[in-house]
């Protein structure tokens, strides 16, 4: 699904990622953990194509294609989905408009006709129920005036409707109370499938109580310093990040 080889990235001439190697197969869930400033968000941004980052070396291959060559919207249409740490508010555009525009862009990309209006509504309303959201949300402006929990839930709603292949969750648990976290986690779990992979970027182990990863990687100073199974997250929770950082140094 995704293969990152010796990726180095600069921001404003400062090296942030210093040789990342990561192999993600279809159906796997990878958690990327690390202290603040370790480069976690840079990694999720570089995968989704955000401007302002300079790739100085290495490759990222997604489904056999060079991911770094594609503009952000092509990545998205090819199935890469970034759930934002801070979803953007867009007054004047309703949620349902955005969902329709996004879904039809994907369909057009794959040579399919626009989605039927009735089928679309049925699909969207089903997913809204799954995420325990109010249907009224669909007609409100994108994220405008939403609480932190509502914004994150809205990201997962978009993910559920667009059915991406590679889902990148950037600090999805930050700002969520435990009830909202459970709903979001259930939403993610319901999307698990053998041909869909997840990269969860998180500072806290808490999210991993609800979404069980296959692999955990610890990112520190722009490098993956340790990889392991789900149990690594528990160890980190217990001991903090200090010991892995020291071990790597």
């Amino acid at each position: 699904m995704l293969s990152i080889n010796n990726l180095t990235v600069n921001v404003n001439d400062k090296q942030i990622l210093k040789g990342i190697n990561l192999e993600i197969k279809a159906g796997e869930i990878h958690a990327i953990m690390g202290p603040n400033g370790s480069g976690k968000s840079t990694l999720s941004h570089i995968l989704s194509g955000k401007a302002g980052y300079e790739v100085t070396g290495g490759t990222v291959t997604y489904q056999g294609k060079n991911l770094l060559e594609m503009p952000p919207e092509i990545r998205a249409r090819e199935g890469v989905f970034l759930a934002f740490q801070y979803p953007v508010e867009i007054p004047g555009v309703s949620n349902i408009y955005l969902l329709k525009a996004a879904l039809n862009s994907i369909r057009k990309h794959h040579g399919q006709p626009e989605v039927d209006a009735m089928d679309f509504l049925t699909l969207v309303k089903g997913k809204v129920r799954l995420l325990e959201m109010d249907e009224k949300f669909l007609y409100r402006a994108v994220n405008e005036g939403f609480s932190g929990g509502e914004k994150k839930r809205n990201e997962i709603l978009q993910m559920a409707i667009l059915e991406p292949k590679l889902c990148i969750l950037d600090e999805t648990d930050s700002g969520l109370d435990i009830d909202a976290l459970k709903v979001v986690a259930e939403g993610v779990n319901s999307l698990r499938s053998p041909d869909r992979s997840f990269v969860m970027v998180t500072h806290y182990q808490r999210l991993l109580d609800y979404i069980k990863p296959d692999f955990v990687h610890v990112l520190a100073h722009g490098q993956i310093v340790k990889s392991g199974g789900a149990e690594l997250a528990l160890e980190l929770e217990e001991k903090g990040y200090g010991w892995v950082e020291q071990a790597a140094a």
Partner: protein
Amino acid sequence: MTTVTTSRYTAEYQSIAPLLPGQALPWLQSLRTQALEKFSVHGFPSLREEEWRYTNVAAIEKKLFSPSINLESSHIDTDWLKLHQLEDAWSVVLVDGHFSAELSVLDGLPDSVSVLNMADALVKCPKLLENYLGQGVDNAEHSFIAFTTAWFTDGLFVHVPARQVLAKPVQVLHIATQADVLATTRTVIIANEMAEAKVIETFVGLDVAYLSAAVTEVFVGANADVTLYKMQCESEKAYHFGGTYVKQSRDARFKHHNFAFGGLLARCDIHTDLDVASECELNGLYLGVKRQHIDNHTRINHLKPNAVSRELYKGVLDDRARGVFQGRVIVDIDAQKTDSQMNNRNLLLSDDAEADTKPQLEIYADDVKCGHGVTVGQLDEKSIFYLQSRCIDEETARNILTFAFANEMVDKIKIKGLHDRVLEQVLVRFPQEGVEKSWL
């Protein structure tokens, strides 16, 4: 300051005066005489006046716009009219400043409520009007006020007595049909204690140069609720001067939605006086293309404690268009616990477009919560990336966001027929490729 051209207006006045409504009302005659004197001395406002420094009205002095004699309105294309006249509303249609009974729709009004044209109102309820006309704004405010007082030929009159709720909105449709015509109107809206009303002022015209000057006074009684929409869609060659002057009693609520889309040169003033615990919301959207000059002035006077004001004006300016926003909030020494927010945001789509914005807070009380903010700029890069990450290409994302910037204001309209018409006008001016109207 008096120029030859202004005296042409004044000179012409003598031949017009006998045709103006309210001849039999001494109080109105004296109001008009006083106004004419003011105007004769000052002429139209000049750039030297602080409130007019961005807006040069010299062009109307160079031309002589003359009032039309009362005419048959049968030449109005009914299909064109339908584009602007709301179906589910009572309407008063004014053609070139004169009432058209056949185009207006006023049947089914409750007996206690008055909705009629100003000329008729001066005949039917002169006593009531004496207490209100000219009481919301003084002739000395600026010379356009004096001008409209002296020159007005008609207008709208709405009176909703205490506790009455108007079941449908009232629309006054100002239509200009002739080149070089002067359409001058005065409107009075009274909502007594606990009454509720929604009024829409629509300004449209054929593709010719004309001058439309319209002043509206609104009196919102104690705990009453008035929403006023202004849809200014004048021809691209026209001059528009509008004023809305509001007096809010205790606990009164007033909302204004000002859509300033038309005119070669358009100026609109909105003033409101707030009594104890009253609330006002001023929303505005101005769209300028080509060489349009669109100027909006607002003044919110917090005169008494505990009142709330919210103001949001947005502008989208393209080509060589210029948008002006001057917003003043004045908090009187008595107006403790005032809660006021004023914002003006401008989106410039071309290097030659210009936005002049001047928010002013004058606070004389010491226990208040007041804020203001201004932005002039381009689209937000974070929002563009967010849409790209949702499969939308960059150009379409920019188009959607430009549209959305304006649409935020359109979405505040609670009357469907009006919402759809305003939306249509936004899309006519900014036909954003990739914005699917049918999905909105």
